[in-house]
């Protein structure tokens, strides 16, 4: 039986094979990883759905494959148990009884998305109205799999197909958006001035590039700067560091910042919103899932920590560590990078001052933190050396006004400076 690429998660319908763990002749167990697939911002290992001997491998490194595509053929013990019940063929295929058709339906679902332009249904069946619509829209019905009994193509199938075409067109369009500039500018031979190394864009870099451009061209970004006195936070960190370590967690500033941001977001829900440009609505989210920009060898990844407002600092510290590790090892799933409501980009560990972060669309705001440094600060009537951390809040001015941003910043600084000890204590 063939092992096919299963559904990967919403929105992810293809990927590039980066690793093949098995070779022909190997024996695989059900659930054993057989290939590694890079897609969007993750590398995922794909488990076998059958057990037995690998008869054939249909993919190779570098192949872009999509859901439903055959990966390997497995023979042997892996045969489905059903085969042991020798039902006569005629009876099996002709059974009108619904149960008999269920497995078939599942199969259809599994390998639903087709590559555009590919004939998947050489003799398509559809009602006259669907055929007429297909003609009008110049859709080749042979490229659509019918979901109904007998393989009939219904309106929903056509709709899904069009959606896929639109998504593909949008992807291509983004490439083309950059294309005129590219074609206008001549390709430059940099090697004429000295040695160069050429590297193809990785899928991850492509995604980053696309999303950055998307944000840059659609979000009206303004960045609000300030500094927070993080001396107290640092003290709290030192004070409880050992206790956290005892529990196997490392207390850094980030979980404290997460908490302070969540508290401030609750006061200013508009920073936790999105602009629905289709419905012309502002969608205010009542959950607080914060994305953390993680610097990896391959590039930027943004895993999301869910329900920050409801989690303890200890939980946040642990989760943060795990997610960052997963991101660096590229073991993070696409799902774990979705659903964020606000992003934090902390460069403190690396260094640097204020910078202007790019809003992580569809979110409307992002907080960038620079490296905290001891600075002379006037407190009361004395000059004191305090640990000052640069803060930069970028926001989408279409949704958020400057006044709100200033207020948000003031309250965020206060939340950081007056962090409750009780929240850290364990």
């Amino acid at each position, binding site marked *: 039986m063939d092992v096919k690429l299963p559904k990967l998660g919403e929105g992810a319908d293809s990927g590039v094979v980066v690793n093949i763990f098995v070779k022909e002749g190997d024996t695989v167990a059900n659930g054993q990883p057989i290939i590694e697939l890079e897609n969007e911002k993750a590398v995922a290992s794909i488990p076998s759905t059958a057990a037995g001997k690998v008869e054939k491998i249909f993919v190779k490194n570098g192949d872009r494959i999509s859901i439903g595509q055959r990966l390997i053929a497995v023979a042997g013990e892996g045969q489905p148990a059903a085969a042991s019940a020798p039902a006569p063929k*005629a*009876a099996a*295929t002709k059974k009108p009884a619904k149960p008999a058709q269920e497995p078939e339906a599942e199969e259809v679902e599994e390998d639903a998305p087709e590559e555009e332009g590919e004939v998947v249904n050489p003799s398509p069946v559809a009602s*006259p109205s669907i055929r007429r619509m297909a003609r009008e829209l110049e859709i080749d019905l042979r490229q659509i799999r*019918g979901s109904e*009994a*007998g*393989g*009939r193509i219904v309106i929903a199938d056509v709709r899904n197909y069009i959606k896929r075409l639109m998504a593909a067109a949008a992807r291509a369009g983004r490439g083309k958006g950059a294309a005129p500039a590219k074609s206008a500018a001549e390709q430059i031979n940099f090697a004429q001035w000295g040695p160069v190394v050429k590297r193809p864009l990785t899928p991850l870099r492509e995604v980053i590039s696309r999303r950055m451009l998307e944000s840059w061209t659609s979000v009206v970004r303004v960045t609000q700067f300030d500094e927070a006195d993080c001396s107290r936070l640092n003290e709290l960190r030192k004070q409880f560091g050992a206790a956290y370590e005892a529990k196997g967690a490392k207390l850094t500033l980030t979980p404290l910042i997460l908490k302070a941001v969540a508290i401030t977001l609750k006061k200013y829900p508009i920073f936790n919103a999105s602009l629905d440009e289709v419905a012309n609505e502002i969608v205010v989210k009542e959950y607080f899932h914060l994305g953390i920009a993680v610097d990896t060898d391959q590039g930027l990844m943004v895993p999301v920590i869910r329900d920050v407002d409801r989690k303890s600092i200890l939980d946040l510290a642990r989760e943060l560590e795990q997610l960052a590790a997963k991101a660096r090892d590229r073991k993070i799933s696409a799902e774990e990078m979705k659903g964020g409501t606000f992003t934090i980009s902390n460069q403190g560990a690396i260094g640097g001052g204020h910078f202007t972060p790019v809003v992580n669309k569809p979110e409307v705001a992002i907080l960038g933190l620079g490296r905290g440094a001891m600075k002379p600060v006037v407190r009361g009537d004395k000059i004191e050396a305090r640990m000052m951390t640069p803060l930069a809040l970028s926001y989408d001015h279409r949704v958020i006004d400057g006044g709100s941003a200033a207020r948000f910043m003031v309250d965020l600084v206060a939340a950081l400076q007056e962090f409750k000890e009780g929240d850290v204590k364990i």
Partner: protein
Amino acid sequence: MGEIKFFMDPIKTEIVVVGAGPGGYAAAFYAADLGKKVVLIERDKVLGGVCLNRGCIPSKALLYATHQIVNARESAHRGIAFAEPKVELEKLRHWKNSILAKLTGGVSTLAKMRGVQVIPGRGYFEGSQKLRVETDQGQQFIEYDKAILAVGSLPAMPKAFDLGNPRVMTSTEALEVPDVPESLLVVGGGYIGMELGFVYAALGSKVVVVEALENILAGADQDLARPVVANAKKTFKEIRLKAKVSKMTTAGNQIKVAMEYNGQKLEELYDRVLVAVGRVPNGADLGLENTKIQLDERGFVKTNEQRLTDDPNIYAIGDIAGGILLAHKAHKEARIAVEAICGGKAGFDSVIPAVVFTDPELAWCGLTETEAKEKGVPYEVAKFPWTASGRALSFDRTDGVTKIIADPDTNRVLGVGICGAGAGELIAEAVLAIEMGATVEDIAETIHAHPTLSETVMEAADAFYGHATHIFTRKKEEPAKA
């Protein structure tokens, strides 16, 4: 308005339709409905073409009228006997013609109401966008954007049979029922020969049908044709298969016919002969050589899926465009051509039902079993004999069968054939089923009214799964149902 001016100036129009049969008038009307300026040319005095005047409608009228003779006769064994019928041909012709008058008049009225300008006359293409019409009053030129050629076909009359003797008829003359010949030879066992054979047999003629092929109604699956053949054998004097008529000569008030049959050379005398060996396209004397239109080897106009000919300004629909020569095919093509002209993207992809109005009727659509075998298409068949239909029994016509041809894997309905009284009406459900991509189960799951013949379609579907209620089908391989 000045009549002279009318004929001097060429008419400028968006669409000209040449031929006002069921394809042509449908095209003209639809184009007018879509807001086009349309001129419709018809060489006959009346609109409606062969279908209304010399084909579908008059033949059905005669079949209905004469079938009453059979009905009355067969009624006796049910305890209701009638006296021998008295046939008044004049009255029969008049009644039939009154139907034609109603229909053709209706078409004229509809043309008028839509603002379609009808010009009686013969159309002749002067070029790709110019038509000359020879009318009773003289020549009229028409300059158009697009033309739709819908000039139809006429009965074939091989030279060897064309004696110039009215006793050798085509369907056109036979439908006039000039008399009831004592003996009638029907050359050609296709649907036209068989239908008219039944008309004349009911009127009392001794009908002999000769067919060159191995079967009558060759397009149909022979298991479906069987009830028709059985009744024809009873009703006609004789059916001769693999028989070849070689010569006809006038012999006084009769026609002497020479044929080869069963390895023998026969010479027989018939009062009349009906030549029904097919139809040929009306492609001559149209000036098609002045256009870019290309013809196939049989003289039909070549068209694409939208019925556009090789001339970018001329479409062709109906019989002249070849394929199956049926009015409903022409009608669909009319729609497609007009839509194409109006910028639409229509194309012909429809199932065309075929109905033979013999006694009993025979109708089919989609894939036939014969075709499936020829093309190597995998299929499975389920049949329901009408002997098991309460409705068929209640009107004493159990000589029928309903047959479904389906895809063994998907169980999708690929074809349906029905033989029996009213099969022509019943086939509509099957056409819809195929158009909708229905599975056999879809039909089986649909409630069909009782007691009706439509139940036979449902029961054939049930039989496909081995559990039709009113017949017992033991499925060898199928294990007992759990």
